[in-house]
């Protein structure tokens, strides 16, 4: 494993007495693409700004390459940021925007030219050197902002919802471009978003936050398949969250019957939350189902139908290409590994 480049130790930040980030600890490895994910107000942007040096933590330490950087001002940190609204210098053209950091470092003219040219190629903006930034589209401005940050060859790049202002199609394209860029330049990316799909698509590691507290850290697959609590299950993707009781290892009860599952390590008869993803449930004839129910709603979503089935004391959401009309009696089946048992949290 590569070494830790940034480490947060018991970091807390308050604004006028209101806690924005509550005692979080986290480390980020070199060349990792890590995403801070959560709803607005969860503390993800505050965390990013503390790493960038724009906010001082009230408690705890921030380490960069093992050294404490709490008191190092942003302009002395080997970190660059792509801001939410790009924050380009509107009084300069594309070239000068990208050159800003290099001019401060007094990089020789020919080297500067070479690096800027390479950046423009990387962000696919060759020939835009002397365009005024106001004349660019949102996507192009975004790429200038990325080039302006990357040209300084920082060890860590912070990205604060950089694609938030773009339309869906452009956002998807930029997601791929960013991932490619990150692999090509070999820089650690710390990415902030509230878009769970974006987080799952792009990241090596996802940090789910809520109310200033880290809920779960893991790979996208772990976060999606093994949510640690109700919040994560609810926030990441669609899910059916059912209350149940854990009888023993590999045996859980919900919706009025017992199911085999793959989870263990709970207390006898412990109350738990169970997650079943809508796409993991199949619709069958009623007698073949583990749970019987009646379809109460059908919505066409393009790639699949989203149906609500009332049965077993719960309204299950099911995503399937196999449509059953409202009022139909159906059976629901799922495999033991599709049942995710979580500790009942606060």
């Amino acid at each position: 494993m590569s070494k830790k480049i940034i480490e947060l130790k018991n970091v807390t930040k308050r604004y006028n007495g209101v806690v924005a980030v509550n005692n979080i600890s986290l480390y980020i490895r070199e060349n990792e693409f890590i995403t801070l994910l959560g709803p607005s107000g969860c503390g993800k942007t505050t965390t990013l700004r503390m790493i960038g040096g724009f906010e001082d933590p009230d408690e705890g330490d921030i380490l960069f390459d093992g050294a404490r950087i709490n008191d190092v001002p942003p302009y002395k940190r080997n970190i660059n940021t792509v801001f939410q609204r790009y924050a380009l210098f509107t009084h300069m053209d594309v070239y000068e925007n990208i050159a800003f950091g290099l001019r401060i470092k007094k990089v020789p003219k020919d080297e500067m030219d070479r690096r800027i040219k390479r950046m423009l190629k990387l962000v696919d903006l060759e020939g835009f050197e002397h365009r005024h930034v106001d004349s660019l589209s949102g996507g192009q401005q975004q790429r200038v902002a990325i080039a302006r940050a990357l040209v300084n060859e920082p060890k860590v790049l912070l990205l604060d919802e950089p694609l938030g202002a773009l339309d869906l199609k452009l956002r998807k394209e930029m997601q791929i471009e960013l991932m490619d860029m990150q692999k090509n330049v070999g820089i650690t990316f710390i990415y902030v978003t509230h878009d769970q799909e974006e987080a799952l698509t792009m990241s090596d590691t996802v940090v789910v936050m809520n109310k200033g507290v880290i809920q779960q850290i893991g790979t996208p697959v772990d976060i999606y398949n093994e949510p640690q609590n109700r919040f994560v299950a609810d926030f990441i993707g669609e899910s059916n969250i059912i209350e149940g009781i854990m009888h023993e290892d590999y045996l859980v009860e919900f919706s009025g019957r017992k199911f085999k599952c793959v989870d263990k390590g709970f207390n006898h008869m412990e109350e738990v939350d169970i997650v079943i993803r809508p796409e993991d449930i199949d619709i069958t004839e009623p007698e073949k189902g583990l749970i019987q129910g009646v379809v109460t709603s059908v919505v066409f979503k393009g790639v699949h139908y989203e149906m609500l089935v009332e049965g077993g004391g719960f309204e299950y959401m099911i995503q399937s290409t196999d449509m059953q009309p409202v009022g139909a009696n159906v059976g629901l089946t799922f495999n033991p590994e599709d049942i995710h048992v979580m500790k009942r949290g606060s």
Partner: protein
Amino acid sequence: MKNKAKYLAYPYIVWMAIFIVIPLLLVLIYSLTAGNVNDPSSLSFSVESYTRVFDVMYLKVIWKSFKLAIISTVFCLVLGYPVALIISNVKAKYKSILLMFFLVPIWMNFLLRTYAWMAILSPNGFLNRVLSLLGLPTLSIMPGQTAVVLGMIYNFLPFMVLPIYTSLSKINRNVLEAAMDLGANNFITFLKVILPLTVPGIISGITMVFMPAVSTFVISQLLGGGKELLIGNLIEQQFTVQRDWHFGSALSIILMIMILISMAVMSKVDTDNGNGGAPTW
């Protein structure tokens, strides 16, 4: 809807014609004629009023007007920019209070404020009494150019502060953070980002101070004690004392042209600055 809306502009067009275009034309006509202004038939074309302006005595007055206006404008800029910077950086609740300090004096009569300066600066005025009370030598700045410049700075400073403040408050905080993020300390951020972005505010501040300063006659009359004749006083005298409307009009037209040239130069500076930004490094 669009077609109907344009009728709303008609009263304004009429207003402009009566109160701006026609008077301007009259001034132009008077400046280019000689004869009795009350008897249109006696008027004949003449450029004599313009040639008279090139008398050394008048040129000196014009030069002095520009000199004092430029000095006042420079002082207003040097004093006003930091003030605008301070106001834009304080907390929101103090912002309006600080702005009020600059706005309230404007609501008071201009003449009254200038008389107040007379009371402060005159030989037996407030300032000298305080100085002699402290055992310090008294100053004789009024009547004189220093007093005129002080009066101009006092009266026109808010017109410098407000446009600069406005352009400062338009700068997104993110942009300043971006500069710091890219390695700029506070000084470089100011020089390379804040200052260039506030050029439009500086230009309009300079315009709004320079124009009234170069054409004032009240401040120079009251604080100059009649000794410091400026182009504004010269024009006023032609209409009220000398009754030479032709020469007064010619002076007004020349002042207008010189102001227009100054403004054209300023806006050239503004547009030059917008390109690339490389020359500023």
